[in-house]
């Protein structure tokens, strides 16, 4: 006996789930079907996720049977023909709710991600592995049609609902022709042209026309021009094992940019010492230390930020992100809030220390830095100001901050060396603890505090600490801003 066609749409606010449902209903009604749709709106409007549910039943069939179909207002798990999901985690939610079953459900989903608040607000990397979601969806569905629909919508200047509608047509699971689908969009009368373009592209994708695959471009061989740089590159290629070279070259590139050729040389000296450590782990310790050392040696100070903000490449990037078109004028405003401490740290050590310990001048600077400042980098005044600050890298080696950071780096390297002698796996974990120290101002201070706490715990534990425990402490330090998790983890391992 004929069943209604059952379609569930999972979407978030502003993604046009309602529009898509209305399209399907309109297409059904125009093509001799009894169509019903309903939803629980409201929460979707304000960033929540919701399900729109549609049922279609052929009018002719109902007339022949002399009855009126009773259509349901919500999907029954295991009883859905098509699930449309506007985003990958929503596809996962459909699977979780049992709406996607391998005996009948065609799942049409976008593979792009709209991150959940939990993923976004993590202090480190809280993202869910897309492969997990894809794997579950693939296993649950009878057919799984997927591609990046956000990108497809963007490329056609349309919205994701039009892309989903095209993919639905291309999937060939509804008894309507392409002409009927397209006529529906035209009847809607809003944004018809871009919608049809998005529809067409999605139709082709769902029909199996593979997109031209962009293979990752092979990393070009380094071609240094400057003799001193060439020497460094050759040193990397000569003295270090192949799998680590890429990271080292990145490190060298960054540190030349950050300071100068000598500074990159110091980097390689330090890495060479690590390379000599006993570790039979396929270069893991070396690679991780090299990566984190480069990051630490290029710590963020005002000169660095100013340098990055004033580059032409950066101006171009902003132009792209803000989608500035021909004939439009762009202004870039920076939100900066340097405090007395950052200013003193960037000045030559003597001058910085004098300012820090003075009364009058210190008060003056403190008053001046009480409020954040907006600097327009695209104006001459703002640009020249930041360029001047960027130029202060000249005396970076003589600043208080440089001395502090170098002391910490040396201590960290010493600890890695000392640990590697006993337990190379643990040394890798020590190296990765650099990840705790990041950001600016309060964030940086908090990170440093956590790093010191974890290192102190390591010191106390001596050889008795397992690599997994250290990793646990590091993850705990990144779990919340107030250090509750870290304190709990320390107590649990009797390291408090």
């Amino acid at each position, binding site marked *: 006996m004929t069943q209604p066609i059952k379609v569930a749409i999972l979407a978030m606010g502003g993604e046009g789930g309602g529009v898509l449902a209305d399209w399907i209903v309109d297409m059904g009604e125009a093509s001799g079907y009894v169509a019903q749709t309903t939803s629980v709106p409201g929460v979707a409007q304000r960033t929540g996720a919701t399900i729109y549910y549609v049922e279609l039943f052929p009018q002719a069939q109902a007339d022949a049977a002399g*009855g009126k179909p009773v259509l349901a207002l919500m999907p029954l798990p295991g009883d859905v023909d098509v699930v449309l999901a506007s985003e990958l*985690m929503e596809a996962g939610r459909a699977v979780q709710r049992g709406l996607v079953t391998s005996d009948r459900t065609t799942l049409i989903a976008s593979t792009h991600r709209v991150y959940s608040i939990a993923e976004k607000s993590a202090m480190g990397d809280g993202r869910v592995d897309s492969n997990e979601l894809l794997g579950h969806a693939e296993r649950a569905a009878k057919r799984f049609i997927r591609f990046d629909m956000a990108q497809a919508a963007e490329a056609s200047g349309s919205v994701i609902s039009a892309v989903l509608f095209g993919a639905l047509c291309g999937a060939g699971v509804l008894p309507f022709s392409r002409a009927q689908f397209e006529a529906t969009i035209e009847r809607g009368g809003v944004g018809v042209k871009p919608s049809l373009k998005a529809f067409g592209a999605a139709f082709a994708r769902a029909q199996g026309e593979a997109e031209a695959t962009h293979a990752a471009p092979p990393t070009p061989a380094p071609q240094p021009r400057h003799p001193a740089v060439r020497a460094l590159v050759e040193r990397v290629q000569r003295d270090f094992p192949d799998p680590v070279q890429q990271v080292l070259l990145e490190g060298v590139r960054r540190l030349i940019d950050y300071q100068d050729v000598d500074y990159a040389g110091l980097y390689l000296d330090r890495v060479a010492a690590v390379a000599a450590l006993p570790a039979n782990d396929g270069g893991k310790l070396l690679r991780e230390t090299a990566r984190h050392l480069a990051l630490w040696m290029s710590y963020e100070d005002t000169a660095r930020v100013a340098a990055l903000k004033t580059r032409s490449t950066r101006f171009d990037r902003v132009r792209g992100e803000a989608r500035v078109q021909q004939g439009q004028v762009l202004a870039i405003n920076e939100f900066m809030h340097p405090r007395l401490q950052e200013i003193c740290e960037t000045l030559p050590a003597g001058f910085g220390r004098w300012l820090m310990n003075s009364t009058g001048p210190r008060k003056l600077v403190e008053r001046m830095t009480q409020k954040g400042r907006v600097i327009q980098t695209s104006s001459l005044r703002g640009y020249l100001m930041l360029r001047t600050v960027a130029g202060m890298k000249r005396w970076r080696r003589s600043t208080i901050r440089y001395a502090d950071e170098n002391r910490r780096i040396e201590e960290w390297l010493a600890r890695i060396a000392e640990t590697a002698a006993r337990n190379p796996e643990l040394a890798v974990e020590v190296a990765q603890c650099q990840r705790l120290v990041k950001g600016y101002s309060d964030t940086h201070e908090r990170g440093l505090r956590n790093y010191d706490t974890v290192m102190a715990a390591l010191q106390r534990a001596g050889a008795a600490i397992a690599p997994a425990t250290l990793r646990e402490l590091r993850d705990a330090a990144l779990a919340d801003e107030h250090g509750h998790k870290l304190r709990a983890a320390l107590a649990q391992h009797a390291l408090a």
Partner: protein
Amino acid sequence: MAERSFVEEVKKLRLSGGEVFRGEGILAVTKALLESGVSYVAGYQGAPISHLMDVLADAQDILTEHGIRFENSASEATAAATLAASVNYPLRGAVTFKATVGTNVASDALANLASGGVTGGALIIVGEDYGEGSSIMQERSHAFAMKSQIWLLDPRPNLPSIVDAVKQGFDLSEASNTPVMLQLRIRACHVHGQFIAGDNRRAKFTLKEALENPQRDVSRIVLPPASFLHEQEKVKDRWPAAVKFIEERKLNEFFSEGADDIGIIVQGGSYNTLMRALERLDLADVYGNTKVPLYVMNVAYPVIESEVLRFCEGKRAVLVVEEGQPNFIEQNLATILRQAGSSTALHGKDMLPVAGEYTAAELLKGARTFGERYGRLQPLPVPAPVRKIIPLKAVAEIGVDGAPEPSEPVRPLAESVHARPPGFCTGCPERPIFSAMKLVERELGAHHVSADIGCHLFSILPPFNIGNTTMGYGLGAAGAAALNTQAGKRAISVMGDGGFWHNGLTSGIANAVFNESDNLTIVVDNNYTSATGGQDILSSKAVNATRSTGHEIERAVRGVGVKWVKTLRRTYDVAGMRDALKDALTTKQKGPKVLVAQSECMLNRQRREKPLVRKAIAEGKRQVREKFGVDSDTCTGDHSCIRLSGCPSLSIKPNPDPLRTDPVAHVLDSCVGCGVCGEVSHAAVLCPSFYKAQIVSNPSRWDRLRDGLRQRVIGWLQRGEAKRRAEYAF
């Protein structure tokens, strides 16, 4: 201006007899009101009934043509009291609000209305908010109907049945002199379907006639001895009249009555879901032809004894499908069957969940249990246990490249699917208020925060986690009333402008003045009752052709005697907000403090302004668009900014830096440039990664001249700097 416009749809309200109406449930109800000859309609917005109010607001010309008065009531109590017009006069009236929140507020008026009874038909249309997306899901309007003796209609959720229920409801009300409640579940309100329209009817008796020829009848007023009379009338006259009417008009339905010796009794609202379950069990077909006899109660209260006994006659067992707890209908049926000496077994909550929404899956389970118990279904074979095999896999490690991609999922799906709690929209003016509260929390420590109902309640969720209790709409300040004593800290209350005018001005502010409270109340004034869909209220700035707006909250607050009042006209000024909060929490001045935080709801603002800006650009006018961004090379991936904001447009993306693994913050294209990102990064001293781009469309000559000069000089300096860097590049 409401969030959704029904201007196009309301044209369907003009359809005349025989034409096919296609549309949403709510719109069908409005059409049914017009076809029933109502004289007045009133209500208070709130999901799922908001759209009904919005439809009515957009249909005012049609209502006026039919001589119908439409009131945006101040509260549900106001709406219910409006029905007083039907007490003395043959006027048909309808009011609407969400339930049970609304029935709670309205119950005083409802009790008095039901006591004296009505002459003209009085219909209370409640958006029954039970299940997914609801606020207080565990309560039902059913209890209110029973306690006040108001008849409760719960029609099958299809448009013809809903429309019929409206029309029959008025007749029933007049036949039994009793107000009638029509409950529509959220999905029924929004269901799209069709019905054959009838002609619109104009009331014979008008409001004007009532005003000019006042009638009074002291026996309709709730005062002894009349109130004692009402109690007797209710059971002796009105109830029997209602029963007779319901029986005669066959409001309840019997399907396949004699087909079997078991049967199901179901409330109309659950009929479609039950039918789907029976159909999946092969006990019915898709057209509703069922092998199991059904008694569909389109009238949930009163229960018609004669019909129940008729249905149960000769049946071994019946199953009652009644959502929610307590099981009023089941108890009532048990009494009826017991007193009649019936031997029919009664099932209900023993086979269906005691609490929780009766979803299709739950009804499928319950119907299966019932069918199996009485041998109509074979038990499902028990599936053989599957041995779980955990595949051995190399797992990717943080910061370690080259680990294999998992092709098969290795974790349970639940770990990868996160909740998506509702939050503030992009650019919401309420976000900076709570960002400022977070900053104050850092300095002064945590405070007790009494929250209210409204969008601002999203503050209780991550990333803000602010708010200790919420006691009801407009009751934020009242919720902190007891916490008023000599202490080192003050309690903070939050109240929306909607809640303020609903009752907060008296229940919260005036109460705090009278009881000499020392607490702080923040009134979030975003120009609308935004959470219910952006309807205008007294303090709205919008010019509304049919309502009086522009009444300032600060004046009302001062009017009831508050001395310490501050109005912040731009909530996006996070530092200013922080300082004002600190001041209110630390000032030596005694007495209640009120901080009015004003900025327009961004959802409404964008809806209004976007088309205007597009038009202006097309006309060649100079327009400045602002958008925030994050420099991914200075962002270190700590995401403090996200934890202080939670803006949907502030997200993350993979780190483009080959040496880093933590994702960087990223501003999506949906950014409306509200400025909070910049303000927060300043006020919280976060990081220098935020920038604000100002894009000028149709720049003036001066814009172009200045830009040209800047580009030449800065470009020349940048080229020089790039050349120096290129020397060392490889």
